[in-house]
């Protein structure tokens, strides 16, 4: 991992939103990680744990409350106009809801060429058309589709248009924000295979946000597990899925459906009690302490820091001290 170039360096990122009654929602509360060029960085966690917020803050949709995002050695806070343009050209996003991410009044061709009009102003109309057809063929659609409208397409096709729109301006990094959650299983496979193929062909870097644990395992090189706005475990695919050390990760992975009813790990499934606490008043100390089967008194007062349990594998748990 060391020889790889760092694309994003995220340091202690915090994203708070104001809530009713002067309270704050701590959607992301002190998250640090690196994303290396050419890898797929998976982010998993329950609904409401801040996965999407991390992705969006990374792309500058939200202004981070605190912490730094360093893109190719430069802090995004210090970006000037040109930096911003090159950042938006290079960093794109694929959305969760394929129905909502396409403007119903625009033809597919217009949607896909939207970014070209911003970043490739010198292109002639013919060149743009050619480019649109090229990206449509990347995602397995014919140029016939350029004159169609979103309502004429199926969910999977719409999602592929969303991917084509992001690809049209040749980005190097794409945040995939639950790109498969709204699709049925056969289409999920289509889209995921498409994403992996494009990564190989175009050398893309992905941040793959999902709550589908099997899919993240399939596609990711490194994985971050989030709980209530914090990272609980971070490591490469093999070590995270092979031997998760954080109790939350263990519980999460034991919830993956198992096709073999006689399989041994069904016997020691971890069943979590209770609901995920609200990010408005998160528990003090370790955020997981209210539901952790191994919680001690220390967990309730002191928040554990992320520590390296083996090279490249980090976890935040007091149990690892012993």
């Amino acid at each position: 991992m060391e020889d790889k170039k760092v694309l994003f360096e995220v340091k202690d990122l915090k994203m708070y939103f104001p809530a009713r009654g002067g309270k704050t929602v701590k959607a992301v509360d002190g998250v640090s990680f690196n994303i290396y060029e050419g890898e797929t960085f998976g982010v998993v966690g329950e609904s409401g744990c801040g996965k999407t917020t991390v992705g969006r803050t990374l792309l500058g949709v939200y202004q981070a409350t605190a912490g730094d995002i360093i893109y190719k050695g430069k802090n995004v806070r210090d970006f000037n106009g040109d930096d911003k343009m090159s950042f938006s050209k290079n960093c794109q996003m694929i959305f969760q809801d394929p129905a909502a991410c396409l403007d119903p009044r625009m033809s597919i061709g217009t949607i896909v060429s939207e970014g070209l009009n911003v970043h490739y102003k010198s292109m002639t109309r013919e060149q743009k058309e050619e480019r649109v057809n090229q990206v449509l063929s990347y995602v397995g659609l014919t140029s016939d589709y350029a004159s169609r409208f979103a309502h004429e397409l199926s969910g999977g096709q719409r999602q592929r248009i969303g991917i084509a729109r992001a690809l049209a301006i040749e980005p190097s990094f794409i945040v995939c924000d639950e790109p498969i959650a709204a699709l049925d299983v056969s289409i999920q496979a289509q889209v995921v295979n498409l994403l992996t193929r494009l990564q190989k062909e175009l050398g893309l870097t992905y941040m793959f946000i999902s709550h589908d644990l099997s899919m993240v395992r399939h596609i990711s090189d490194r994985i971050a597990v989030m709980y209530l706005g914090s990272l609980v475990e971070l490591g490469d695919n093999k070590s995270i899925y092979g031997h998760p050390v954080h109790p939350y990760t263990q519980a999460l992975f034991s919830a993956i459906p198992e096709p073999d009813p006689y399989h041994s790990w069904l016997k020691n499934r971890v069943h979590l009690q209770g609901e995920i606490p609200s990010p408005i008043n998160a528990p003090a100390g370790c955020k997981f302490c209210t539901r952790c089967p191994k919680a001690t008194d220390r967990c309730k007062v002191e928040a554990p820091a992320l520590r390296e349990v083996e090279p490249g594998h980090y976890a935040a748990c007091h149990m690892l001290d012993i």
Partner: protein
Amino acid sequence: MSQVKTDWINDTEGLSPEMFQIVGVDTTKDRVLRPHISYWQDAWRRFKKNKLAVFGLILLVILIFMVIFGPIMAKHSFEETNIAESYHPIDGEYWFGADKLGRDYFARVWQGGRVSIIIGVTGAFICAFVGCIYGGIASYFGGKIDSFMMRIVEILSSIPYLLVVILLSLWLDAKGIKTLLIAMCLTGWTGIARLVRSQMITLRQSDYVLAAKLLGVRPLKIVTSHLIPNTIGLIIVNITFRVPSLIFSEAFLSFLGLGIQSPDTSWGALCSAAQTVFTFKPHLMFFPALCIALTMLAFTLMGDGLRDALDPRQRK
């Protein structure tokens, strides 16, 4: 938990490669055969399916035709008085009879329709225009400017327009189309301003606007290419619902004597004049009242159809 379960991959008992063959992929099958239709074509297709809405549209076309050509078709001018023909009954000469001053009622009804429909349509467009700009600005800036602008809207919409009309006609010392229009538009745009504001706020948070932002599209371009086209359907529907209510307001004000003054006329003014002789000459009330009712019905039916046709969620 470390074991990767791959036993099922090797569980191939009774299967051999010969049992499988590659069927291939037919790439021609993926071509779309249905002729493509634009958003507006699709809306028109759905509008046509709605029989009531089409009925409304036809009714409206007939009414507009009559309003334009009715006064020309009549045998007498709408202003031409002829005391000898006072309250002339319905016959081949006076198709709708004549009023107290012997003016041709057929010509007067359609002449009055001109005023009513002009007030309804221009009023609705002025309201829509002002409301769109106001609502758009409020939603674009948001925050304090938005809440300040919306408080103004609340204050304005709480003033009864009747009061405004009376005050305005006193102040301008004139009763007529202009005064009526100013008075009704002064308070009438608030509804559409609210509507546009809320729609724009919803749209601003939509994924495709976010996608456009991430692509680096400038805010003004986002407004013109995403926000306005997606609000226009809503505005059109609102205009069609606004027209009948304005026509009715005009009729109501003219009925009270605050609107159009003789010899010019409108449907409301005709009804007002007819009420004194209603017992003896009920047809003088019937024709303008029927026209008001039909126009309102036509616009409402058409508006209903348009709302269904332009709403993407209604799409089947």
